[in-house]
């Protein structure tokens, strides 16, 4: 109780100091908006619906791209772990492409797909796919061989061993790979949205970009807060259940 009070006090003090400093005109109001004006912007934008609309456009791109990336990355990671040939070919490509910041895909995506939703999805998928693939591959390789041996003596074979033993045994790695993939997808989408305007939908990145063009610093900071909020919420909704499961079963440390 005392702990929460202290935290609330800290953030209240932070906001009040910020507001007072802006009022004392320490900085130009063009460069630093006051917390009250940011609040005002968020309130107005939520009421007229631009913010909600932009959030939905962004989330749609993010979720579709992310889940497509997972749907490709997980099975391909199993494949690279299983087959020497796939490891030497696709595995090498994955290792290389994983080091490429996914915003570097934007120029190519625009040339290939034009200013379309597909271009956005492509960038998100490229951000997700390779890190998920590599995490899956790693996870499968670190499964203690004794699990598969024990399963075989109980009559498990082939695909049964893969899906009932190898995949669940590598779950701790899969979850951290999925988290990393999510972080990459989110960053690459924001970069892409700030970088290019897509006429089929205005996302949060575009809102941020036009905030700068219009010198509307309250908009810039307000949208940044929303982006932080989505990041935190996604972590809670998408990954907390998995982490609770890992904690319960494996006894791994809570994060």
């Amino acid at each position, binding site marked *: 109780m005392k702990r929460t009070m202290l935290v609330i006090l800290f953030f209240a003090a932070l906001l009040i100091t910020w507001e007072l400093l802006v009022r004392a005109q320490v900085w130009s109001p063009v460069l630093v908006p006051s917390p009250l004006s940011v609040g005002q912007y968020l309130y107005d934008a939520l009421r007229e619906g631009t913010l909600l609309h932009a959030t939905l456009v962004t989330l749609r791109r993010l979720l579709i791209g992310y889940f497509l990336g997972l749907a490709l990355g997980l099975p391909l990671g199993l494949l690279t772990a299983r087959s020497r040939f796939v490891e030497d070919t696709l595995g090498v490509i994955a290792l290389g492409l994983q080091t490429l910041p996914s915003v570097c895909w934007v120029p190519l995506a625009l040339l290939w797909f034009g200013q379309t939703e597909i271009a956005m999805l492509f960038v998100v998928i490229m951000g997700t796919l390779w890190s998920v693939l590599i995490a899956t591959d790693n996870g499968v390789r670190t499964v203690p061989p*004794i*699990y598969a*041996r*024990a*399963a*075989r*003596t*109980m*009559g*498990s074979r082939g695909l*049964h061993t893969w899906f*009932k*033993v190898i995949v*669940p*045994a590598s*779950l701790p790695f899969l979850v951290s790979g999925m988290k990393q993939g999510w972080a990459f997808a989110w960053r690459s989408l924001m970069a892409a949205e700030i970088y290019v305007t897509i006429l089929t939908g205005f996302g949060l990145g575009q809102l941020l970009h036009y905030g700068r063009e219009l010198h509307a610093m309250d908009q810039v900071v307000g949208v940044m807060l929303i982006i932080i909020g989505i990041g935190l919420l996604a972590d809670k909704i998408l990954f907390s259940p998995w982490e609770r499961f890992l904690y*319960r*079963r*494996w*006894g791994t440390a809570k994060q």
Partner: protein
Amino acid sequence: MSRVPQEVPNVPPDKLVVEGVSKWFRTRRASVHALDNISLTVREGEFVCLVGPSGCGKSTLLNIIAGLETPDQGLVLADGRPVTGPGPERMVMFQESALFPWLNVLDNVLFGLKLKPDLTRRERREIATYYLHLVGLEKFLDANIHELSGGMKQRVALARALAPNPRVLLMDEPFAALDALTREQLYRDIQEIWQQRRKTIVFVTHNVREAACLGDRVVLFSPRPGRIQEQFSIDLPRPRDINSVDLARHATAIMSALKRHLTPEWMEPTE
């Protein structure tokens, strides 16, 4: 044309027959002769202990009987049929419990049962709870593996191995990592379960006393290459106490034989 009446064999075949099994492990640099021309028969319902210093190939032989490894020469017959791979009629218990951490205790025991298609859900659950009861863990059905002590883990592993009702149980130093008190309890338990369920058990250990306590017969191995040196039959009444004087007499005999077969170059620090 007169038909010759066929002679019907009246004696059941030996449960396990190991015939002239040899095994080499080849690495890029060297080839290790792990097993040299091993022959061994195990009768139905017999409790056989394979004992010897580390590196004598006893675990390798167990893996070959399990079907997890293939011999370079010779073959293994189980119920008169050649072993070509692992199967649920020959269950293995490993030194580490090899329990699956993503499943709770009950689901671990159910794993092997779910691979038996002729059982219903209810039957599987009944069998699993029966065996968990047998090993004294009926109160831990929902527990997670990481919450169990080392001894409890091996009990779950034992229940998991027993549940699909294998005729043969292959145990690879299953109690080596446990403390002395837990081990003594498990010696009593395993003897009781063996008498009740009449399994054929092949038990690998480097602990001579443990071998004398559990086995009807103790098979002594020497290393490099792995060979069978001597066999001892232990005719003490059961259940046996690991600390009894009679047992110590047998253990001493086996121990001195073991030392006799070890030349100094084979000597290795054992645990």
